[in-house]
């Protein structure tokens, strides 16, 4: 009996260890459920961020234009629209113009970007490349996904997925260069935001 149990324990132990080892080499992607949750968390971050930005008088008068580019199967656009509406008790939506363009509508998106924006967000599935972003002359806040695009572009903000959490990377120098004035209170959020110098 004792020998049987020892064998069982050994078998289970081996199964888990080798299973974990094997899995570390296999391919992966995130499930749709995870992606939708990430989109909701990102929308919440961005909604909070808009409160930390000191908009100039022209923007205050004409409204904040947010452009979202890229296919959006995980409903980031809808989430952001709803989040901004809720966070302002249904009134603030009037100050925001939120536009979404799929990858098929890239030309139209670039036209709108050229006309000016306050915030440009690239979804995870956006086709826009680092080269495309470098060509953008309009001043505004660019938000991308992942460290790679963040490191290789002038985007001052990125969403980073790490350790099962969504985190925000911010390059304050680039932020200031982009003409975005951010409340000094943001600096107090060092525990929650990763400030980096690219």
């Amino acid at each position: 009996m004792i020998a049987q149990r020892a064998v069982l324990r050994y078998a289970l132990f081996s199964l888990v260890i080798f299973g974990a080892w094997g899995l570390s080499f296999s391919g992966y992607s995130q499930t749709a459920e995870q992606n939708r949750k990430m989109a909701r968390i990102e929308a919440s971050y961005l909604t909070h961020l808009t409160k930390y930005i000191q908009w100039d008088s022209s923007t205050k008068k004409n409204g904040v234009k947010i452009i979202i580019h890229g296919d959006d199967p995980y409903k980031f656009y809808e989430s952001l629209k709803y989040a901004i509406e809720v966070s302002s008790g249904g009134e603030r939506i009037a100050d925001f113009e939120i536009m979404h363009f799929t990858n098929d509508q890239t030309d139209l998106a670039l036209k709108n970007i050229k006309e000016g924006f306050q915030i440009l967000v690239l979804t995870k599935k956006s086709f826009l490349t680092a080269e495309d972003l470098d060509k953008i002359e309009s001043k505004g806040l660019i938000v991308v996904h992942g460290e790679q695009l963040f490191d290789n572009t002038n985007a001052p903000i990125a969403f980073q997925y790490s350790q099962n959490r969504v985190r925000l990377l911010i390059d304050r120098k680039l932020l200031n260069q982009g003409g975005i004035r951010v409340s000094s209170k943001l600096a107090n959020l060092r525990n929650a935001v990763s400030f980096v110098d690219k």
Partner: protein
Amino acid sequence: MLGCFLLLPCAYSEELSNFEKRELSRLLEMDWTELTNQPVSGVLGYDQEHWRNPASVAIIRSDDVFDGGHLQLVDSFRGVGGMYVTRGNAYDDFVTMRNFSGSATEKFLMLVDGREVLQPMGGTITWGSEEVPLAILEQAEIIRGPGASIWGTNAVSGVINVTTKPASATQGNSLRLALESTGTFLGEVVHGGKIGEGEYYRIWVRNQEYAESDLLSGIPARDDGYGRKIGFRFDKELGSDMEFTVAGAYSTRRFEHVLDLSSRLLFPTDANFTTFVPVSVANALALPGVPNGATYSTWPNLSGTVQPSGVPRIVNYEELPQDAGHVRARLAGVTNNELEWAVDTYAEKYKTNLGHVGHKWDRDEYNLEFRGNRPLGDRNHIAFGLGYRYMEFDVTETTTSPWRFSTLNPQTGLPSSDIPILQYNGPDSFERFSAFFQNTYEVNEDFFISFGSKFEDGDLSGTTVQPGIRASYSVNPDNLLWAAYSRAHRQASLVERYTEVSYARIWNPLAFHPTLNPTGQQWINQSFEADPSLDDEVMDAYEIGLRSSPSENFLWELSLFYYDTKDAVFSGPPVYEALDYTSIGGEISLNYSASDLWKLRGNYSYSKGKREGARQTDFPESMASLLSSIQLSDDLNFVQNLYFTGERILPSAYNELPIDDYLRLDLGMIWHAGQEWQFGFFGQDLLDPDHPEGMYTDLDVEPTRIKRRFLLTVSKNF
């Protein structure tokens, strides 16, 4: 719709469902720090988004505890459907779920930051020892229904998973003070700071001074005392993909506890020794052959009578010290291809002396666990783990002073003045080895199936396989159906399995004769043997539920369950028996925002238990609660909480006590003075001057009066 259900991907609505809107509203209430701590994936355990969970899940956060005017986390469970919470005396709380566990034994699993807190000796939870300051509480996740496929043995009628915030989320100083009109006082202080880049710490102190209650008969309950606790946590980021945590706590409690002796010395009323009365009653009736008091001179004096039986009341109070400390460490990370992993370990020492029954034990426990999860393809998310536990006991029995008189021990055939009430005869160390695997498969965006099993091999529970399968299906964006089957095991406690209990002594009034009546004119010890053959309780649980959000302001849920348990262990009186048990019932709950200023939560639960076909009466079949919060102004909230508990019977060997149904009304005003300070004033149990709730049957002599009371609380946020 059929295409969606069968393996074909279907177009998910581009509109946000009401479930998603509710979830977004919840996220928006979080500050940045809280957002950074939101897990994206929750397959590890059941920490998925509430509305997608194929299970009955309730989440309690620190605001729920403060706004409810609850001193302790356990008090807030009263607002969760299917949960039955009672207070025995000032420091004893009992929690049971879904009409399954009898009076005192908590047949569910409770974890605090991954540490199992169920006491294996008695199968109970010392709630007061496990409390943490409210400011560091992340949440208590209450999963009704078995969760054995991940959590393993003892996750039978449910799982309570308490987690605390990371140190980075508790920076600065926090304070909470509470004073009850009964005299009970609570103070909590937390301080958190930063040591270096990515290095955070916190330290905390908690002190609760318990005021003395009155027993149902009006006699002082002698239950005043204190529970004090200190703790710490240190978190360090080891690069971008790994973090390390070490945390610990030490708690000490000092109380007295009673042992009811009213019906422990028995006198036979027939020649065949089949019926008995307490010897105090025999004395009062002047029955022939009643023993001389000198034969039990150490026995305490009478002190009134026990109601409703009218038996003369005899009690013995002894010290009940409890000291516990633990240290835990966690190393967690994620690999480049999204394998999220964690290695957890903890060591715990628990010392207690149940002076009233002369049972003292030290427990040393060591636990090591590995868990991992990761996506596999774009439809699967697997979770797996491996664990090892080692426990060591040092048990000491003493004969308490009332029992130190000459009594024949039938096992030795000799008289003795040293027969302890509890005699532990089990092993002094136990090992447990476990592994689990679970996969969540997204058939399509509407239909999820989770299946897996836990495998365990331990000295207590033998080798077990505990499988489970759960499925959820979005009928449409605003309605979710779920169903589950699980098989769960609960191991008998060490007392149930290995401890001989000397519960009474019988006087033999017949004349002594060396051969015809060798036990004549003597006290004879009565005991029942523990039963090492008590097998695991094995439960097959079937559950089905509907979760619906007809508007973003309204969510309602229906959960139905049927539990079929083999070898369910029920303690006393007077023996431990393994019996077949079924429990059937359901809960309906609602969450409604009537306006931006008025929020309502409510539930109704019904459950019926049958033990070997006979109706179980120690759990109220109907319970309900309605919690309401009205925001009177920007900084003022008015809360109204109503709780209904159906009738039940407290079992006893000689003094069954019916507990009438009762309605509890709490009213409170909360003032938010700026961002940091909150003041709360609550009136609790306002409808009745007092009522009884529960007690340790066969230990306590009677329940205490839970009185109408008022509570003032002050808290300062970080």
